């Protein structure tokens, strides 16, 4: 498959490399791990097979017939100038087919899987493109016009002679909706006590705007600035994806998949694991509100989400076998 238009940023991602954090290597991996896994399960791949993470728009030309899975919120899929009905789908594209993702305003990322995963080398145990150090993915960089990707062919599946689009699909809203209400659940962060109760309240009562200052590492919010905590000098320490940091200007920063491994800004909150795909998919210029959640509840929500994905994987396996 040859890339005609990579869009804002198209990278190869899997579930990342959470093994080298002590050496400063970000965990990385898909920004929305649910949609990434769904794209894989749609064609019978394992969860960790390499997908293309598309930001907004994208187009490509198919050279050799290829089985694909498509999921996510970044746009609508078009094949040969015709819109594919919405939802996560499996497809067979014959040689010569042209694939396009037209961006929509509802979300940010779409995922394209290929049978057996896109064939790129594993670096430090993962295919994910680490942009900070320029390795992984295709030659360590985002995809460009003219790049050629092939499916690894590690799974055999009979080729079709013409375009095939699965009649069955997975509704994108099955895990979460990306429209309003735009509530993000958080638990208190490790430096929660740095802020007086009035400021803690401010976090939950403010409408936070998602600014264009965002990438795979993190996103800057803008709203009623939080105070600079009295005890704001802290020693750098290991940080987590989903941490809500407060830099001196009081405008929070949420860490995403490519986050640095350590940081020194106080963390007022931590986005719960079940809401991490949702925040990654929230479009720029939309507004979020934070809602308090405790650790035990967050774990229950996370396990419920994983169980739901597992049910979908099993159902898709049955559909594929049939």
């Amino acid at each position, binding site marked *: 498959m040859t890339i005609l238009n990579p869009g804002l940023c198209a990278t190869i991602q899997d579930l990342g490399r959470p093994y080298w954090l002590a050496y400063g290597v970000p965990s990385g991996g898909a920004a929305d791990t649910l949609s990434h896994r769904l794209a894989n399960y749609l064609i019978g791949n394992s969860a960790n097979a390499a997908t293309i993470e598309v930001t907004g728009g994208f187009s490509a030309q198919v050279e050799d017939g290829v089985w694909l899975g498509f999921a996510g919120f970044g746009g609508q899929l078009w094949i040969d100038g015709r819109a594919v009905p919405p939802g996560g789908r499996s497809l067979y594209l014959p040689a010569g087919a042209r694939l396009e993702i037209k961006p929509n305003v509802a979300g940010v990322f779409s995922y394209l899987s290929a049978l057996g995963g896109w064939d790129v080398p594993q670096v430090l145990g993962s295919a994910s493109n680490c942009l900070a150090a320029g390795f992984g993915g295709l030659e360590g960089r985002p995809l460009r016009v003219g790049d050629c990707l092939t499916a690894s062919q590690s799974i055999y599946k009979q080729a079709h002679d013409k375009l095939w689009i699965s009649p069955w699909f997975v509704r994108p809203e099955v895990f979460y909706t990306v429209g309003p209400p735009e509530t993000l659940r958080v638990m208190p962060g490790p430096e929660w006590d740095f802020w007086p109760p009035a400021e803690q309240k401010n976090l939950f009562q403010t409408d936070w705007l998602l600014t264009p200052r965002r990438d795979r590492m993190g996103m800057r919010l803008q709203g009623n600035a939080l105070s600079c905590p009295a005890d704001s000098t802290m020693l750098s320490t290991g940080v987590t994806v989903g941490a809500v940091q407060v830099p001196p200007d009081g405008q929070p920063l949420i860490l995403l998949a490519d986050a640095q491994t350590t940081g020194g800004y106080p963390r007022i909150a931590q986005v719960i*694991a079940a809401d991490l795909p949702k925040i990654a998919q929230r479009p720029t210029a939309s507004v979020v509100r934070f809602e308090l959640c405790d650790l*035990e509840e967050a774990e229950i929500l996370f396990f419920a989400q994983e169980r739901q994905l597992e049910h979908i994987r099993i159902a898709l396996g049955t559909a594929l076998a049939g």
Partner: protein
Amino acid sequence: MSTVPDIRPLSEKALVITFGPNIDPMVHARVLDMADWLRAQPFPGFLAVVPAYVSLTLHIDPLLIRATWPGAGSPIRAVCSWLENKWPNLPQYPRQTIDPVDIPVYYGAENGPDLNAVAAQTGLTENEVIRLHSETIYTVYMIGFLPGFPYLGILPPALELPRRATPRVRVPAGSVAIAGQQTGIYPQASPGGWHLIGRTDLQLFDPQRNPPALLAPGDRVRFVPSGP
């Protein structure tokens, strides 16, 4: 060190163990002991540990913990309580026996564009700055910020300066820099706010190597001034 460490969850997937409030070689040694000890006997669901100045962050896979630890209702709390029971028996591993890693540095001029300003602000000559910076043996307290970026301490007090008022948009790879009580080396070109006093040709990070970083927390480092 008999201080009770503070163990608390950061998220469903990570917890932090804090051994003390301030930068202290003894506290850092306990951080490294805990890291080595956990790596030596990883439990199912163990992913990685990140040593820092006074704390150790432990990353786990809650699904694996729940599947393999009988009765672990809350995986992260189960690991926290397990650590609460285990830390008093934490062994002390021998340190300081390994030779320091030598880092050849070209100080000043185009390799260290801030050397002159650092000398001016500290009231030292450029040669005194170089001598002070290179005669200290540093400890790697932490790797972070960028893949392979070592946070080295402790800088001689005469060289302590706050960060630059305006960070640079692009610091060249290999730059040797100072800020506060720390000195460090940029493995990749990146934005940065530290004072650049030199540059090394050593490759600090190579994803094809195992481990990928030249330095690890606990290593000792010496800067060696080199030609021209």
